[in-house]
């Protein structure tokens, strides 16, 4: 488990990182928390010539309020996301999902931005970004741009990030007061999600007034379950109504079919877990 040799640089500013990236071209790879990239390098499934470590760039870390928007720096570790008071107040879906990412060691090293940029369809946090309509803040040689999460994930392990761009932060509206739950289904605690569902709902007087639902590992990218949301809104937050609405969870999905879990089973799970996630979120 020794990676092929590579050059390494750890710039202290975003500008320097972008410059290094421009210089390294397609032979360069961004290193965030390393929890996915390092195993890939050690297994020699990738052999970039240059690693640009973002770990020393302070401006990419931490959670801040910008007006009504909560911005999580791309290099904020999962552990710091979970502990952050702004996240806990405004983004409980993000906090609750991040608590279920991998294990404590990974959460101390892995970062929100790294996980999202890696875009593993079985990764947990993409569904949160999609459900909450996060804006992905991206810096490149020509300045900054913002991409909605729904357009950020484009395919398996593929995002809207260009080769010369860096994800700098993830901006969310406030979901203070919403109920939230991440229903993760995996065979053992260390395994990836077979299927998982992120749900946030606003319930008033027993009626669902707003709902956000997204699915993990039901296709090449995280999938917003808009059909479920539509079926939920203005309906009762009752067991029967929620489970009926959850049947729409398979709309627009394309789950993989493998020995671990046939596609039909994943589709069934998506419906069951959606019901459970929404009911748990509705409290």
């Amino acid at each position, binding site marked *: 488990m020794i990676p092929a040799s590579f050059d390494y640089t750890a710039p202290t500013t975003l500008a320097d990182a972008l410059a290094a990236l421009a210089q390294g071209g397609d032979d360069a790879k961004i290193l965030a928390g390393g929890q996915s990239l390092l195993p890939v390098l050690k297994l020699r499934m990738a052999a970039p010539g240059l690693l640009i470590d973002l770990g020393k760039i302070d401006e990419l870390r931490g959670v801040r309020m910008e007006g009504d928007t909560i911005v999580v720096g791309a290099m904020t570790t999962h552990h710091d996301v979970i502990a952050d008071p702004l996240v806990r107040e405004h983004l409980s879906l993000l906090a609750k999902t991040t608590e279920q990412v991998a294990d404590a060691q990974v959460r101390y090293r892995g970062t929100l931005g790294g996980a999202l940029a890696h875009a593993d369809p079985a990764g947990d946090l993409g569904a949160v970004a999609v459900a909450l309509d996060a804006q992905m803040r991206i810096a490149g040689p020509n300045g900054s741009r913002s991409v909605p999460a729904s357009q950020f994930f484009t395919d398996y392990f593929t995002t809207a990030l260009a080769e010369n761009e860096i994800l700098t932060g993830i901006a969310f509206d406030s979901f203070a007061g919403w109920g939230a739950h991440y229903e993760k289904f995996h065979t*053992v605690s260390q*395994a990836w999600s*077979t299927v998982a569902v992120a749900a946030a709902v606003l319930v008033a007087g027993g009626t669902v007034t707003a709902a956000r639902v997204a699915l993990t590992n039901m296709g090449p990218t995280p999938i917003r379950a808009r059909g479920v949301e539509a079926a939920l809104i203005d309906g009762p937050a009752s067991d029967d109504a929620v489970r009926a609405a959850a049947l729409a969870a398979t709309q627009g999905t394309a789950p993989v079919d493998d*020995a*671990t879990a046939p596609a039909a089973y994943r589709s069934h799970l998506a419906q069951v877990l959606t019901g459970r996630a929404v009911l748990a979120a509705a409290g």
Partner: protein
Amino acid sequence: MTTTEAPPAEIGRPRTRKEDQHLITGHSTFTDSMVLPGMVHLAMVRSPLAHATITSIDTTAARKAPGVVGVWTGRDFPEQGGLACAWPITPDMKSPVHLPVPTDTVNHVGEIVAVIAARTKAEAVDAVELVDVQYSELPVVTDLAAARDGSAPVIHGDLGTNVSATWVFDSGAAGTGGDASAAIEAARSDPDQIVVERTFRQQRLIPAYMEPRSTVCDPNGAGDQITIWSATQIPHILRTMLTLSQGIPEGKLRIIAPDVGGGFGGKLEVTPEEVATIMVARQLGKPAKYTETRSETMMAAHHGRDQIQHLTMSARKDGTITGFDVDLTANMGAYLALVGPGVPILGAFMYNAIYKIPAYRFSCTNVFTNEVMTDAYRGAGRPEATFAIERMMDELATELGMDPIEVRRRNWIRHEEFPFTTVAGLTYDSGNYEEATDKALRHFGYDDLRAEQQRRRESGDRIQLGIGTSTFTEMCGLAPSRVLGSLSYGAGGWEAASIRMLPTGVVEVVTGISPHGQGHVTGFSQIVADRLGVPFENVKILHGDTNISAKGLDTYGSRSLAVGGIAVVKAADKVIAKAKTIAAHLLEASEDDIDFAHGSFTVRGTESSVTIGDIALATFTGHNLPDGVESSLDSEAVFDPENFSFPHGTHLCAAEVDTETGKVTIRKYVAVDDVGVVINPLLVDGQVHGGLAQGIAQALYEEAQYSADGQLTSGTFVDYLVPSAVDLPDYITDKTITPSTSNPLGVKGVGEAGTIASTPAVVNAVLDAVRQFGVADIPMPMTPARVWQAIQDGSTAAGSNSSSTGGAA
């Protein structure tokens, strides 16, 4: 009161492990920790194909790579001998040549085709990618049934078949019981009997020890000594087998098993990697090290289990078994491993388990496939046997509509019937299945759980509850040499020990077993402290170096305590006998008047005494010894028991099945084990807990899977699911103590018990929860997808004609 209090007995004390401080403070010395002057590092080029002819190997670029010292293909090792299989189960067993580095053909993914030596590990690994190997693909065989029935292409052309051997035991022929075929035939036409026929699949498992395999070889010892450090369970066997298979004189070989991080049978092997490392070191005249990656462990180290079990049982309608036929197909992989062919045969004596079965037949056909070899994995043959019989007992109970515990009671050997000679020809010395079962039922709350199960069924609860039973026994303490000889095993089963009484009160105990995580240093210290009456702290256990422990047969088969521990006791008794003569002389008394207790020799009826430490010092000075007595208390002993030991127990599992997702959660697990006299309850609990984890993992999580073209698709821990503590329940463990009569301590083995017992308990529990939906069986591992699918299929199949499934969704 000033009388001397006897010190508390060490045996039975929950001592924490002597080994742990060394291990957990970072002072461990694993093989990979070894650094020798001038040492080169090796990396292996491995076959990406399961079956192919090697048409060419171009090593030019690799040889020129930075730091590379040399590159070897199979043809560059003219000295290499075939790896030996030590267990020819039949005289006509077919065994292909197994070169450590094959020259012409690769027969499984991961076989070594070239070896690279470089100044650093990184340089060696970099050069792997520069070796250009051309292959011509051959047809791949992964289907056991096809390998057996001749419909698959022959893998080893010179053998002419994919069948290695068929081994048969028939109680009618052996005179230990009736004719099973006749009994089953008779049952088929007897209205008062039923015949239950099932086929189960024992999936392939990966031992998954924590420390990957590693070997360091220093070829430059004084007197041509070749020193080999290896992460092995079997330093002594490795030494002998290297001589037999590679022609290196045994006297030149010193094998050291330093700290070894687990094995579970997976390091009971003489490996291609060990031989390749030795060959490179000897050719270069430099020390060489090879440590595998986890991916290489998964792909190239031996696997376990992998059988198809076809089982036929006949019984009277009151539940009494009348006949049992076992027909196995066992996957050997591409070659025969060290004891691989014998692993399923070890099970032959255990399919009858704790039951009085009047007629029994066992047949096992070992076949070759293009997969990595199988060999010992925790339990080795006995988990497979226990699974089969305990599943069948539940199947029988289901067919007869009886309580599964009651069916077992009807058939098991009652405690007053010991010693009991079984239909397989073994004599069980002792046991008390009734007591263990009663105790387990009390801990479990059996009746309450059955009532809850009924409530959940009636209400159609999303969570259904099932109860699984496993009343098991096993034969362990591998010995006796005569029995192993009768099975054509290539070695004995004795164990050796020696004791050295140092002048300062330290007792050095040398044992031939080779611990790799069990805690033997602690347990053996307790035994010796009690036996010799010396402080626990003063006992030093030495092992795992053939220059120190010259004689031994190592650690596997739950033999270390029940065989190795007894050798230590016998050596200690010899020390006492020697010391007694000297004590009598020093105390000026007759030897007949000397008593020994708590480390002191006392003239009976007097206060006159001398300690064993005093006598050790007296032999050091030699100033005052009786005439003709040599100046030493040191002793050696070998123990070869006349019988195995037979631990047993009752395991009960309550499993919850989420019928919407198929996920299984173990709600409660009770293990009441009888491992005889307990030396250290902490160590016993540790063994039981770890064993349960591995047995439960077979039921629910783990499976080594090959694709049809022979690629290992579960080659990382992302796909090969080893559970962690989070995934496993709290265990309720308890014991009954029925001392073994085959050794003076009354101990039995415990290393494998949890693994052997637990798998069928879990599977029986899951099936008990979902049979109501028409589910007859679910293959292991019982993954959520499989459980859910079984419920869907069962419900569909049961469908219209099932009226008793009120809980069905």
